[in-house]
């Protein structure tokens, strides 16, 4: 596959998005014909401009990432449009903005590539942590935090709201890749053995302990279980990938187990989440309602779904954002859900493939950590919707309604693509 195959797949994704919109118009009798053309145009403009930027500044980049993002966005957008045409209109603007930002990133990295980012490690760490903590700004400030559905994740400025945590993940991934590129050799040295596992000197667990601390702060003050777990998984996963030492996984697992028990004992919001997960029908009308509705929706979807516009995904709370997968499972059925999961699996495979093929350690680790961010985030919310795990309240990359998420994930894909340009054989 090459850039031309990528371009034709992108046209295919644009056609799928407009076909989805046309089907919604037809079944719901909306009859906005302009919406179909508009959707096609937005897909071509947004993904097409990123594809053009790759052609110009990273011609050898992996051609798989962008089409996979485009089809996930197309499936998600169909459901968003089906649920609320107003949200869909905003989502289209977000998609254009996200595409423009991805082009800007590729432009800025056109010369030296991602390599130049290695030296700004502590700047990235600071920016990442500040972004994470930004929603804690008091309400009296011009830029202030805001609480929606019991989680304090949003920042408002003059009526605009965004989720800084989405971008924070990228900055922390950059920090981690750079830190590990310099320290992975020292971190993989063993000095003592405990229970058959070799352990490096204690000070090398520093980043893991910091990660645990930051995750805990996020969990306690922002009541955001998802971001907390995601960050922790990123730090522990990368420590393992960089060193090949299972002791980091063991230490991380232990930390999660202890932290989980403590959090469950201490915080009512964690107890509610876990309770709703284990027994959603015990408190059907309140805490269990969302999961119960999602289960009904997915169950009634059957093999090929009710048909787009023919189910009732509007009954699921947060169907357009966190629970978009339940809406897809209802209206596109098991077949549609498996396609979505397969698309994420292919994205993750492509991402780790890029990491494996890249020789330079910084870019190798960066590709791996970006892939972990994308993969773990998708996994957490998919598992939450499927009731395999407590609901964590994070967005499904590319599919959920939400500008910050779309923006961060498009930039993530642009960075991965730029890494693959120099790192792999053509």
């Amino acid at each position, binding site marked *: 596959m090459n850039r031309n195959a990528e371009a034709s797949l992108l046209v295919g994704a644009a056609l799928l998005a407009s076909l989805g919109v046309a089907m919604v118009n037809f079944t719901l009798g909306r009859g906005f014909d302009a919406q179909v053309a508009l959707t096609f145009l937005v897909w071509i403009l947004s993904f097409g401009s990123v594809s053009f930027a790759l052609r110009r500044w990273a011609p050898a980049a992996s051609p798989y990432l962008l089409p996979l993002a485009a089809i996930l966005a197309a499936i998600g957008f169909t459901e968003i449009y089906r649920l609320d045409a107003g949200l869909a209109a905003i989502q289209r603007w977000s998609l254009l903005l996200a595409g423009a930002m991805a082009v800007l990133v590729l432009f800025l990295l056109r010369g030296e590539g991602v390599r130049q980012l290695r030296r700004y490690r502590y700047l990235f760490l600071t920016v990442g942590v500040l972004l994470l903590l930004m929603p804690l700004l008091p309400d009296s400030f011009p830029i202030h935090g805001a609480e929606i559905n019991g989680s304090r994740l949003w920042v408002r400025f003059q009526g605009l709201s965004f989720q800084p945590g989405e971008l924070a993940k990228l900055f922390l991934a950059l920090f981690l890749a750079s830190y590990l590129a310099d320290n992975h050799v020292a971190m993989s040295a063993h000095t003592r053995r405990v229970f058959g596992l070799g352990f490096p000197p204690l000070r090398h667990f520093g980043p893991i302990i910091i990660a645990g601390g930051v995750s805990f702060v996020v969990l306690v003050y922002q009541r955001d279980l998802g971001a907390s777990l995601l960050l922790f998984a990123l730090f522990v996963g990368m420590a393992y990938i960089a060193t090949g030492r299972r002791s980091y996984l063991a230490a991380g697992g232990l930390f999660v187990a202890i932290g989980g028990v403590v959090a469950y004992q201490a915080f009512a919001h964690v107890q509610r989440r876990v309770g709703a997960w284990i027994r959603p029908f015990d408190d059907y009308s309140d805490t269990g309602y969302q999961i119960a509705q999602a289960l009904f929706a997915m169950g009634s979807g059957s093999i090929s779904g009710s048909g787009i516009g023919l189910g009732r995904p509007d009954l699921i709370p947060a169907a357009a954002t966190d629970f978009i997968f339940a809406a897809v499972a209802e209206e596109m059925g098991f*077949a549609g859900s498996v396609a979505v999961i397969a698309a994420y699996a292919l994205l993750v495979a492509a991402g780790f493939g890029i990491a494996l093929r890249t020789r330079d350690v910084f870019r190798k680790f960066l590709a791996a950590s970006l892939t972990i961010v994308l993969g773990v985030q998708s996994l957490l919310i998919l598992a939450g919707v499927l009731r395999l795990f407590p609901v964590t309240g994070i967005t499904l990359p590319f599919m959920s309604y939400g500008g910050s998420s779309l923006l961060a994930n498009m930039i993530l894909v642009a960075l991965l693509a730029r890494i693959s340009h120099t790192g792999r054989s053509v």
Partner: protein
Amino acid sequence: MPALFLNILKLIFLGLVYLFLWQIARSIGAHVGPGQRSKQTKVADELTVIRSETMAGQTVRIGAGIVIGRSDEANFIIDDTYASDFHARIGQQQDKVLLTDLGSTNGTYVNGRRITVPTSLGKGDTVQIGKTIFEVR
């Protein structure tokens, strides 16, 4: 009638989604995984950088044909001040792999000899562009 029509439409949509994913899945396999070492082909199909300040170990597949040079437009961008913007082209012709110098300033060398005409490459040959040395694999 509308129910049947909607059902067909639904299946067409799903079919298109799977067709799309199939197109990607089909060719992604070759690009996932650490290396080319497992793939043994008879014809020379890739170049590995064996001597370079910054690019040692990188591998480039020849495929249908590639242009090597310092320019951003080259298929394989070489980090070497002694190479020209578009230094040399390697392409397949029948079952031969041909190396052509594109009028470079410092010349292209195969096994230490400067080439003046398109030269056929085999496995194990070395190609020098600027100060960078590739091995054909």
